[in-house]
């Protein structure tokens, strides 16, 4: 599988380039600085500083209600769909602020794919599920090839190649979730966001998805929210630990290499959480 020459994705071609945007190799895909989100005036998360790098899996862990999903949804502007959601701070994607006024959230979502907690295939055939994204994006080339490539990347091709015209609803839950991953890959995004992608799946399906994530890491930046600490430890390269303060506002306690977070965390709260003393 030959990958196209990696180009720095551009959100809004007409927009002036951000002043501090050197396309250096170590530049993170996402750089969050002082990000806060409030729903209807009530803050949900605050002061989030976070980097997401290419070819790495970044895990967001922490107790329920600490804002992991909220932060994840800032990265593809899905928070825009929530009435009264306000996002502050800077979310820089390759140096471009995706919340700048000239940026269309639709353009952001073309470059930043997402997989949801519960598999949500469209009520269509397997083929049409994959082809939906490329079609709405007006991608050129043979749709058969685009669909096959996406299914191969999601390690699903051999299982479904003989029943592409059948409804996606006939697949098992694990297959549906891999279909959703393939669907996200079909539009050639640069980042994949995953919101607890295995929480509705059995252990065998979970293992297959984890294998897939490690495979996909070669070509994509992946951000995964998970409640399963073993999962974070198994698949991620870097981990951010979230918690809530006294006012129930979520924030990042620390972010570091996954090994360090699990074996030698800097903060006692992180240690208490990863060793299962609280949670």
């Amino acid at each position, binding site marked *: 599988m030959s990958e196209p020459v990696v180009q720095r994705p551009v959100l809004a071609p007409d927009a002036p380039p951000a002043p501090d945007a050197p396309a250096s190799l170590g530049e993170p895909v996402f750089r969050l600085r002082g990000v806060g989100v409030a729903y209807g005036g009530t803050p949900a998360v605050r002061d989030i500083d976070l980097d997401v790098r290419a070819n790495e899996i970044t895990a967001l862990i922490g107790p329920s209600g600490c804002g992991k999903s909220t932060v994840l949804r800032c990265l593809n502007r899905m928070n825009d769909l929530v009435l009264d959601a306000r996002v502050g701070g800077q979310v820089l994607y390759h140096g471009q602020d995706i919340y700048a006024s000239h940026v269309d959230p639709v353009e952001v979502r073309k470059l930043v794919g997402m997989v949801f907690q519960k598999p949500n295939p469209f009520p269509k055939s397997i083929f049409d599920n994959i082809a*939906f994204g490329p079609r709405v994006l007006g991608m050129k080339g043979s749709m058969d090839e685009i669909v096959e490539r996406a299914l191969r990347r999601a390690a699903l091709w051999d299982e479904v190649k003989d029943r592409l015209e059948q409804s996606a609803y006939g697949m098992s839950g694990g297959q549906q979730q891999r279909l959703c991953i393939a669907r996200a890959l079909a539009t050639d995004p640069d980042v994949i966001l995953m919101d607890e992608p295995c929480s509705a799946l059995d252990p065998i399906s979970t293992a297959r998805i984890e294998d897939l994530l490690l495979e996909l890491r070669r070509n994509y930046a992946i951000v995964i929210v998970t409640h399963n600490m073993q999962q974070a430890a198994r698949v991620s390269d870097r981990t951010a630990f979230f918690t809530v303060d006294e006012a129930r506002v979520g924030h990042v306690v620390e972010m570091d290499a996954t090994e360090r977070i699990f074996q030698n965390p800097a903060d006692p709260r992180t240690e208490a959480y990863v060793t299962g003393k609280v949670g």
Partner: protein
Amino acid sequence: MSTTRIAPASQRERALGGLFRAALLVSVAVGILTLVWLILSILIEGGPRIDGDVIARFPSSNPELAGAQSAIMGTIWVVGLTALITIPVGVGAAVYLEEYADRERWWNRLIELNIQNLAAVPSIVYGILGLAFFVRGFLGLGQTVLAAALTLSLLVLPIVIISSREAIRAVPDSIRHGALALGATQWQTIWRQVLPGAIPGMATGSILALSRAIGEAAPLVLLGGLTFITFNPEALDSAFTVLPIQIFNWISRPQEEFHVLAAAAIVVLLVLLVAMNAVAIFLRNKYQRKW
């Protein structure tokens, strides 16, 4: 004394349960028997005249020669045109209210409240509105097919909007989010995912609304549909009559033969209604989805 023994139901509880079941059965029977009795009596009364002549002949002062063709064609024209007007407008309004309208805004709440209320307005009121607005006043269309279709459209529009909204709301948000997350615009999401998912519900609701329109006589009497019409409508500005009005007309004649003819026309109307409902059921079953 063992506490694990299952106590038998008391005599009284059993009797109450049986009584309740019987009461429910009687309720169902009353509804079904009334319907069967109605249909049977119509079939028996209209029996001698249920033949090709009812469909093939035009109204006449001689009951032996009279048929309902102009009324049947009038009904098809008026209801067909009503469908062409209400379905796009109704679906459009439903999409706006469900997908675009910000419910926090007072004008959107006002629109919603109005639509709910309009569904409950008696049909004769729509007839008066149609007479003043479409036939005479503002549009001045005269007593035509178009004026009748516009009036019936107003009448059934609230029903179409409400049922389409239900159908759109039944499409889960996970489908919308899935499409939006792939970089689809809001319009692409609605057009390619939400509306196809809502088609069965919208089709059923629209057909049921049109079944109501097909049986309406009151507003069309006001619009001048009562005239003696011996030709089929040919254009939007043709004069017209419709089946319920033709039936009403015949029943009010003194001659017994016209009453028989009216019964035969009722059978035709019932067949049209049953056919439309059958299409609705077919569409619902064919496109039914589980989310």
